[in-house]
């Protein structure tokens, strides 16, 4: 009796269905425990007055209303938009230009690719962030180089509300390597017969780029745009270490403000509300990018 029972359990477990459910179980548990449940908790706290130390008090929409009168909130939103909308397109343009340059394969291509990709590997690290702070400091490399070229007074890059954000943008653009690799592999998939046909029709390389290469790359550009936009809105480490939002909050990123409110200023409820607004904003932007996809992304076959 016992034996047959054991056998059936074994057989029950050895079906495609059971195996699928068991194998994906870790993800299901992790997804619920570390994403869905925390999100639900934070949704509740976003409607509460809460500061980690004292129990939450339900206050309805107060946190969301506070945003309307919070000038810093608007400022961080503007800074973050500016950062994302400048750095992401610039990054993609650089990635595309360098990918086109490296597409021509020579003996040195492997080395070149490594050179251009290296900054992306380590760009997000604290080491690079503290290096960046020193590069743009008053006595840093950038000022020293400019002064060697004839500039008289050092510029306070990090101290001026106009230039500080640009140091962060340059740092972001500098890490165009992974987009470049995606473009490179996409370029290799474009059949050479298309270019041959175009050449027979008398198209020069400029026309070939605009009529063949670019349209066929639009799916990759679109994908990169979506992923990089999301990441652009979430830049954190660089801002926290390099500028801390200074001067005058001109580089205060939304995520850093969220962090400050929740963990330093003791308004965890407000921080949670800010996080949800951020999520909604990212969702809207992603949706817009997908909704306008039809207009400019080539989706026909080859």
């Amino acid at each position, binding site marked *: 009796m016992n034996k047959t029972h054991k056998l059936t359990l074994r057989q029950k477990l050895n079906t495609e*269905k059971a195996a*699928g459910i068991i194998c994906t179980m870790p*993800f299901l548990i992790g*997804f619920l425990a570390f994403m869905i*449940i925390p999100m639900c908790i934070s949704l509740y706290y976003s409607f509460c007055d809460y500061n980690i130390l004292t129990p939450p008090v339900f206050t309805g929409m107060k946190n969301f209303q506070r945003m309307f009168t919070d000038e810093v909130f608007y400022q961080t939103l503007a800074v973050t938009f500016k950062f994302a909308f400048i750095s992401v397109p610039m990054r993609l343009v650089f990635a595309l230009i360098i990918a086109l340059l490296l597409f021509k394969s020579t003996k040195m291509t492997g080395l*070149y690719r490594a050179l251009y990709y290296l900054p992306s590997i380590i760009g997000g690290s604290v*080491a690079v962030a*503290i290096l960046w702070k020193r590069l743009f400091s008053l006595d840093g490399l950038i000022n020293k180089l400019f002064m060697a070229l004839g500039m008289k007074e050092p510029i306070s890059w990090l101290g001026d509300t106009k230039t500080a954000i640009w140091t962060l943008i340059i740092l972001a653009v500098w890490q165009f390597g992974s987009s470049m690799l995606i473009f490179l592999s996409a370029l290799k998939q474009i059949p050479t017969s298309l270019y041959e046909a175009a050449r027979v029709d008398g198209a020069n390389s400029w026309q070939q780029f605009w009529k063949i290469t670019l349209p066929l790359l639009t799916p990759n550009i679109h994908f990169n745009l979506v992923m990089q936009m999301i990441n652009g809105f*979430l830049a954190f480490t660089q801002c926290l270490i390099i500028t801390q939002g200074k001067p005058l909050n001109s580089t205060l990123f939304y995520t850093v403000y969220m962090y400050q409110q929740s963990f330093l200023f003791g308004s965890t409820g407000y921080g949670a509300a800010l996080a949800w607004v951020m999520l909604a904003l990212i969702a809207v932007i992603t949706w817009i990018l997908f909704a306008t996809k039809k207009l400019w992304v080539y989706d026909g076959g080859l």
Partner: protein
Amino acid sequence: MRNKKKVINIIYHTIVCACGIIMIYPLLWMVMSSFKETNTIFNTATSLIPEKFTLENYANGWKGFAKVSFATFFKNSLVISILATIGTVLSSSVVAYGFARCKFPGRKFLFAAMLASMMLPAQVLMIPQYLWYQKLNWVGTYLPLIVPYCFAIQGFFVYMMTNFIEGIPRELDEAAKIDGCSYYTIFTKIIFPLMVPTMITGCIFSFMWRWDDFLGALLYVNKTEKYPVSLALKMFCDPSSSSDYGAMFAMATLSILPAVLIFFCLQKYLVEGISTSGLKG
């Protein structure tokens, strides 16, 4: 004609090389500055080669802060990164097998959830996760930095491995089934051994991301002797610490060394990971 081609070639290499050097110049500057005497770094900023080559910065930096040396910080980073990486890669491979080879109710939904979770940024989850880990009494330990990763929560790895398994011919599974393998032994005996290349790619990415992780450590680690390298480096920037820039550059150089070494030794796997799954790196 041939001469013209040669000229074009030379121009091409000059341009590509020059741009490449500009790209990595900041890094070169950091590495070379770490060998300069600390009080000469900014006076001689425009020259790359140190007037006097010294290792003093490394000795000074290694002493660390508050009697905790960088040996401890590196050990902490290694423990966190290695454990989290093993957890990620193993759990992701099992989950990927489930997605790639088994049909079960809810598969499509779960797969979509996985893809959506890839878009869900860590920063949005920062506060809720913190509160959750606080309830679990995990704050101040390494658990929040390791345990979640053992549940395949990084969709990137699951997605990459699912694609890889789908590329393995199903005939192998069928043959193993006829030989008496269960769905589980097919994974352990057939699929898992074949997954080595994608596992290596996964290990590289996971290790480098965990090594660089700053936000997680900032939130959950609160004792100096438990700091990973990323947090320890930040202390060089704190206004309270003395500004020994030589030591700072020396330790920063050491901290990027693992990533750079991995990059140059295992470039092939990295490039593959990015171009096949088309994701960030």
